[in-house]
């Protein structure tokens, strides 16, 4: 088991956000976390990554608890791409190089440069190497963020709504990229996502959150009309078109 989350609970002073979340994932698996706005998707990712401190529960990577890990050591295990990312006047190369921060003692080593170079090739960003990230399109910028996470060389890759501001082509491209990387590098990928059809194309496991609890978890079989109507409070039809499960709102 690569990643185990056990009984994670988080609350603000007068509001419970997560109420005992447990799940586990193998290497190479892609998980989509589904749910309405405010269901606790982003909070769950932040609790796994210790950006928020959960009041209860534990996260284990390869059966070792991450509780005692320093920020630097955790950054070598879990990479996280948040929803709110600032673009700045740094080049694509520099932006990806920041991903090596947990490994850099004083200055950049040859290995760091090689990893960034390789990441740029993997993401086909060669022609943007020295372009400032604030001059990139949304899709390219998202790729740079993924690149930064990849440069961290972690066991787990988490992305909070990576497709929210992208057009359809870039949505498919980015998710395909994450899937490919997870399979090739045998890392566990977790993505929060609103679009159920994109989630169905991309993920092999699903968690449906409702009011801070897991309403349903498992493979494609959990994406049912009943579960969707409970979680999203909308009526849908779930159909199969060309061997692909599709959710159609009524």
């Amino acid at each position, binding site marked *: 088991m690569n990643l185990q989350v056990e009984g994670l609970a988080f609350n603000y002073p007068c509001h419970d956000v997560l109420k005992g979340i447990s799940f586990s994932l193998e290497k190479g698996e892609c998980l989509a976390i589904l749910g309405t706005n405010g269901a606790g998707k982003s909070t769950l990712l932040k609790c796994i990554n210790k950006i928020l401190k959960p009041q209860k529960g534990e996260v284990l990577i390869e059966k070792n608890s991450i509780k005692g890990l320093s*920020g630097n050591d955790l950054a070598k295990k879990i990479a996280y791409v948040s929803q709110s990312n600032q673009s700045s006047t740094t080049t694509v190369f520099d932006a990806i190089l*920041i991903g090596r*921060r*947990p490994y850099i003692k004083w200055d950049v080593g040859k290995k760091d440069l090689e990893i960034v170079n390789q990441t740029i090739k993997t993401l086909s960003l060669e022609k943007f190497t020295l372009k400032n990230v604030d001059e990139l399109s949304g899709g390219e910028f998202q790729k740079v963020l993924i690149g930064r996470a990849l440069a961290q060389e972690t066991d787990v890759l988490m992305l909070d709504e990576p497709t929210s501001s992208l057009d359809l082509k870039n949505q498919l491209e980015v998710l395909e990229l994450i899937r490919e990387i997870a399979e090739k590098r045998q890392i566990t990928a977790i993505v929060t996502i609103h679009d159920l059809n994109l989630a169905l194309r991309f993920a092999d496991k699903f968690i449906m959150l409702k009011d801070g609890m897991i309403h349903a978890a498992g493979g494609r079989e959990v994406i049912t009309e009943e579960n969707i109507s409970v979680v999203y409070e909308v009526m849908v039809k779930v159909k199969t078109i060309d061997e692909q499960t599709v959710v159609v709102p009524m």
Partner: protein
Amino acid sequence: MLKKPKAQIEIEGDSIELYQKFTAKKTLLSLALLATLLVTSVFALNSGAFNLGSTDIFKTLMSIGSEMSSVVVWRIRMPRIMAAMITGAGLAVAGCVMQNNLKNPIASPSTLGISSGAAFGANIAIIVLGAGTAQSSASQPVVVNNPYLVAIFAFSFSMLATFVILMLARLKSFSPESIVLAGVALTSLFSAGTTLIQYFADSVQIAAAVFWTFGDLGRASWQEVLIMTLVVGCGMIYFMTKRWDYNAMDAGEDAARSLGVNVEQTRFGGMMVSSLITAVTVAFLGSIGFVGLVAPHMVRRLIGGDHRFLIPISALMGAVILLLSDTFSRTIAAPIVLPVGAITSFLGAPLFLYLLIRGGKRR
């Protein structure tokens, strides 16, 4: 067969090679600035009210000059040049780190009430404790006769301002907004206090207090230069150890945290050290505005936001700007020496506006 355009050939090259060429350009810029600084220093050493030829200066530097030229070079011009370089470098790196830590492009010592705190402290020393008096000299009718008392008070109150700001900001987990708001509140409080003190003072005391607020590098002797060098030097080393954290923080707080940066601690340390640098320079020399704003912005436009280069090159740029401004202030209306704070603001304001307008068009 058509030749490929040069840009395309470059793009297809190895990313590492391209990147190394790119960073080499930044090193070249720092060397160019260093050379400019040296040339400006030589020019500054040659300029001044007392007429000294280059040969006299050279002889003095070789310890074979006259007693008078030795006094002018070693006790007046040299400490002033050193003070300009150290203060310029210090204010520039302090501004650079504040802008990063507070995610605010116009963050500077004056935004945060540190300078107002120093001015309030100086006013107490000059007016309440009587550290300022009248003098009969026509060129400088008002003097601060106990500069150390003024410096100690200015320093204490600017550090008090820093502590209060950081304590207030702590209530809100050191969010940039809380630091800026606390700074605005303190600025207004200290300004009100200064106004009240000045209201009950006589005209000589007010003149001495106003005179103090003009930034003036002539106040620095070797002793002040040494203290400032130590503080700015240690501050720069501290900032350089945190340069990767500042780079990560440029990508956003959550991104920085996920890269292992303790954002609150880094911000507290950065604000503390940059405030200390500011407090020391303001206490010794008075307010010198705009250097902390303009220097890092100019460098950011030239080389981007990589703090590995941004911090040292901003320091060089700040040193060049302040030394040039001071030399200008000493020579433009010689033998009258204009306050350098006024010159930096005169030069800084249009330059800063130009950078903003240019930046606005680029996007």
